[in-house]
């Protein structure tokens, strides 16, 4: 039964007895047409679009923990399509369009809030680079505006304009950018997939691939062997470990990214703001917490926690940008594992093993990509051809020399 305001009222008046489960807890079947490894945002979205758009059936999602327990459950919830390079920008704009219809599509309020993003710039060189980027956005059909300092003083008067080490000279704004409720996105896709017959199997860890003559046959799991015609892997934070079971080395390093939330506050910050002269970005959740982050810690890590230097660095940036937050308090910090690729851009591609497909290397930008990543991966799994917005996300771009390096820092993942 669908969700709606009327339904909420009806259930409230009858003791909430009518709400069913958001999804089933099915036992794994012996074989599926398509097995998705990873019940995070991208895996669940993939399953949803496979079932809804590509009309595939006999699909399972295998999740080693609980649904949404990956990076979809611990991120700073920003959605945007303000990329520079042609390999990226159309894909993220496609994702933005999917966000814009997501709640109605899923019948689930994932609280997509198009409250805008401001990328501040602090020098003429940065302005030129943002103009190049803003124009790339327009070229791909996205929106963007270049704001002056005067515009910003009107819009976000609490920024440190007058006593700054790196004066704020303006910003690239994308109005359609904003935030979404991260858990809600996972649950919305999970519920949608479940309603379309996808088996979402929790506490089911993939422990190996069964590969015969270069073709995938199925996966070994903590709940037994499961046969599969096709296997799609979308396991951010575990990509290298999982693909190593198929004998692959990846152009990926795993790093820790910390994120932070303050205590709840009355409305303070209108949209998303990123500091161009320090490592800091911030938005405010509907509950009132300032949600912010900065750089990755910088060393390989699977520990899901970071260290103090980056905590201090991020918050120093925040204080320099908006010194009115000094009296707010940090409530919680956490760390997620980021699969940092060698050029800072993701991979959605077939592997050299027939029937084995890979989706990963999202660095710390995977959340905003969730809908398009799921859509494009579903397209690849269903049709064996890349989705037209994701043609550049190939494995062989590294060896052939077609990297998609937005930051221009080369094969050093901790700088992307």
């Amino acid at each position, binding site marked *: 039964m669908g969700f709606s305001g009327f339904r909420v009222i009806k259930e409230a008046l009858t003791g909430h007895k009518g709400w069913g489960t958001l999804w089933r807890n099915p036992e794994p079947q012996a074989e599926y047409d398509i097995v998705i490894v990873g019940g995070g945002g991208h895996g669940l979205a993939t399953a949803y679009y496979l079932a809804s758009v590509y009309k595939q059936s006999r699909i399972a999602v295998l999740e080693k923990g*609980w649904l949404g327990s990956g990076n979809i459950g611990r991120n700073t919830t920003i959605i945007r399509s303000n990329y520079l390079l042609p390999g990226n920008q159309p894909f993220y704009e496609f994702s933005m369009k999917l966000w814009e219809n997501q709640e109605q599509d899923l019948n689930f309020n994932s609280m997509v809030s198009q409250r805008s993003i401001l990328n501040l710039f602090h020098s003429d060189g940065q302005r030129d680079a943002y103009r*190049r980027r803003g124009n790339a956005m327009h070229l791909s059909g996205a929106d*963007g505006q270049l704001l002056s300092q005067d515009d910003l003083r009107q819009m976000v008067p609490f920024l440190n304009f007058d006593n700054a080490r790196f004066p704020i000279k303006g910003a690239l704004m994308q109005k359609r950018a904003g935030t979404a409720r991260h858990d809600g996105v996972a649950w919305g896709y999970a519920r949608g997939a479940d309603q379309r017959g996808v088996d979402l199997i929790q506490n089911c860890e993939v422990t190996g691939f069964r590969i015969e003559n270069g073709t995938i046959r199925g996966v070994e799991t903590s709940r037994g062997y499961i046969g599969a015609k096709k296997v799609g892997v979308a396991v951010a934070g575990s990509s290298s470990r999982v693909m190593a079971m198929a004998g692959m080395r990846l152009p990926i390093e795993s790093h820790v990214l910390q994120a932070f939330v303050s205590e709840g506050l009355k409305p303070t910050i209108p949209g998303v703001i990123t500091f161009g002269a320090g490592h800091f970005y911030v938005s405010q959740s509907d*509950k009132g917490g300032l949600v912010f982050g900065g750089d990755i810690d910088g060393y390989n890590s699977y520990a899901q926690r970071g260290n103090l230097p980056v905590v201090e660095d991020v918050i*120093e940036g925040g204080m320099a940008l908006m010194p009115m937050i000094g009296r707010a308090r940090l409530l919680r910090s956490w760390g997620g594992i980021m699969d940092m690729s060698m050029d800072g851009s993701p991979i959605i591609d077939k592997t050299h093993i027939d029937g084995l497909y890979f989706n990963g290397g999202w660095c710390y930008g995977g959340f905003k990509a969730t809908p398009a990543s799921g859509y494009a991966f579903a397209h690849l799994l269903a049709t064996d051809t890349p989705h037209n917005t994701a043609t550049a996300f190939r494995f062989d771009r590294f060896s052939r020399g077609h990297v998609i390096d937005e930051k221009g820092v080369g094969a050093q993942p901790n700088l992307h």
Partner: protein
Amino acid sequence: MSRIQGGLIDRSRKLSFTFNGKPYQGCAGDTLASALLANGVQLIGRSFKYHRPRGVFSAGSEEPNALVELSGGARQEPNTRATGIELYDGLQANSQNHIGSLSHDLLALNDLFSPFFAAGFYYKTFMWPRAFWEKLYEPAIRRAAGLGALSMLPDPDSYDRGYLHPDLLVIGGGAAGLMAALTAGRAGAQVVLADEDFMLGGRLLAEDTAIADLPGAAWAKEVTTELQSLPNVRLMTRTTVFGAYDHGIYGAVERVSDHIADPGASVRQTLWRITAKRTILATGATERHIPFENNDRPGIMLSGAMRAYANRWAVTPQAKAGDPIAIFTNNDDGHRTALALAAKGVALHGVIDTRAGAKSLGDYETFAGATITGSKGRKGLKSIRIAQAGRSEWIDCGALGVAGGWNPNVHLASHHRGRPVWDADKLTFVPDADSLPGLHIAGAAAGQGTTAEALADGARAAMAALSEIGLSAAPADIPRAGEEPTGIEAFWHVPGKGRAWVDFQNDVTVKDIKLAHQENMRPVEHLKRWTTLGMATDQGKTANVTALAVMAELTGKTIPETGTTIFRPPYTPVSLGVLGGGDSGANFRPHRLTPTHAWAESQGAVFVEVGQWMRAQWFPQPDEIHWRESVDREAKAVRDAVGVCDVTTLGKIDVQGPDAAEFLNRIYANMMGTVKPGKVRYGLMLREDGHAYDDGTCACLAEGHYVVTTTTANAGLVYQRMEFARQCLWPDLDVTLISTTDAWAQLAVAGPKSRELLSRIVDDFDMSNDAFPFMSCSELTVCGGLRARLFRISFSGELAYEIAVPARYGNALMERLIEVGQDLGVTPYGTEALGVLRIEKGHAAGNELNGQTTANMLGMQRMVSLKKDSIGAVMSRREGLIGDKRRLVGFVPVDATQPVVAGSHLITQGDPVDMEHDQGWITSACYSPHLGSAIGLGYLENGDQRFDEEVIAANPLEGVSVRLRVVSPHFIDPEGERLRD
């Protein structure tokens, strides 16, 4: 008023404060919470979702309810726990999260509609129509949500940082912590003892248990005095250790002056990073409550807190002294509160004990096998309903203490994601002893909760910790402590139809947990996220274990099967001011000043931030109104006469050694090792992935001695990469690298008259073109014996030099050049003119060398030598790099009055303006005074074959598009005659 006898407050020091504008008095030693209770104030705040009236629930940092906005103006501090605010004279506090007054909060309407706000309701609605979310629903939700408000004014206070490196860090100054610190301190170890309270003693201050025949608080004071006398022990009160990080590093915040009415010049708080060889976690325990219908009213609090208020602060929490008090418990600890209150002559209803066999431990009534099934009193508790043996009865009650058992404070032990283990006897999670390397857990934090246990365990932990680091301690003489009963039987919540709160601040009730179960949100993380349990500012310190128990009951699993509770840093919320401490304004990051900065300042230069550097951007003359006038004048002066510019910011690396030439060959794409003494060569560096990285010059001062320059931005990184090559790739090459950027002031002297100008300052040095041609270098002296280095290199395309002198003379050299060159028209120029000059000459800089480009794109493919290996050489030959047809070219507007705008994208005439037809972009642009029009550089597909073609520079971002003509990037002297002249 409900002050009673005794306590640890100083009744002789009265402190005035206001709450919601109304004046009150308290005593030194009070917290805001105890002082408000002493004044009969029960209603202090409103809950998050339903805006229910709330009062003080605890006596410590676990407080979910009594949050206030402390102070006013720019110092307004929202969400501050009244239980942790040390009272000072003149304190102002206000309640928060209500519209209208605290007692008549308009948002309390939410409470009436609470059935609609069940767990997860917002995921199910507010979806139609789509546009209403941002415009209507979300703003309304945001206004109602949130807690306190920021002032929106910059934080006026200063914060400090510090670093400590003790042998032993003891966290918590209660019985276990004091005993641990004493044991280690007497053994001579370097000890830091940190406690969040303003007095040491922890729970001893709240109890009446005797130690060594002294009241616990008196014993704590004695120990404190001894610890203070030990030079190797540092006692840090008002200091919260908030996070456990890797390798024994802990973060702590010391509240230096928050408790002082007038802190003067003192910092507000200090962030300490404590690197300890070993750590003892002696953080005690937090009490649980037992949910029952309407258990959230002001006047209902934790039983242990009630005992603390009576014993330490001499207050009881009723609105009126004399209103009777009751205790609801499933364990012996509730009875201890009854005993403490009875001993102070407080009127007691008795103890409602869920255990069938419960008996009174003193002179008060016990209702065995009884529960509380409801309460009344909208803004303060009026009555409770006691159910016993199938009957229930309403009785008047002014305050209720609830005792559900104690949870060890495992927080820091779980910061490395270590999971606590369930102790079925004690009915609680205790931390895994191996949860964190180097950490020993002692006392109530380890489940050793009686005073006697804690004393012994603290001493034991200290000895164990010291022995691990090679220090020995004499076995401590453990003082005798009074007995404390500890019996407990599981009882997690009182079943019923009404709302029974589990998590007070976020308004999560037993019903919400049931709904989460019904909807299959059963894994503990789903439960938390669906209901928001434990997500409030207290991180669910008083709620999480109870919630697990409720879920366990629903699923039929055990509590440990259902889940565990782990906590994330920080232990309690920490101000962003102190975490981002230090300078947040103009000194947020250091400034590097060039050696001529003082002179430039005296000339009225306009400065610009270039990374860490402050550089002169231009030097306005009195009659110049627009910056372009200054820049045009400066650029022209270089083309026509001579200009001087401080270029010290370029990185300089001294390269020495017999293998220096070979090393440079491997670092640079082009052949560099063959540059002869007295010569300079331009060089291009690639990254190992084959992309262009940095460019600069290499001057050979003598055989085996070179000075390499880098771009300003990459100075540090190039040095680091060169060290990598030297140490990690080719350790057998005998070469030395020393960064000498700061040692030399380097001035560019450029223009047709530069030779003439320099010849006026050099000491006996032949400046002629023959003796010192283009790309020469030499060591020499200037201005009567000052050692200097002279390089004949050009960035502007003019005859030009760079001269370096010891940095302290840079300022004077600049003055001298300007002074002696007046007749030549010498002109100082800044970075803006420097940019114009290099664009006119077609020199790539940061906008072109942005890490995405190749030697091909720069037109420098021939510089990548095929005769030798160098970093990036192999990879630069990959198909994608070789096949890249974009080339750096120049652009002029077809209509000379039009601008060229950097960041515009290039589109072939007639093509649609979209990504598919993107042909490149403008990297740099300026107005060229030499050409009298705007010019630009940019990368264009097949650009080197498209000279004279007209293309569109599309700038839809700003709604303009300009027709440009493709030209050579060398707007000036394409043959390079001037610089060789």
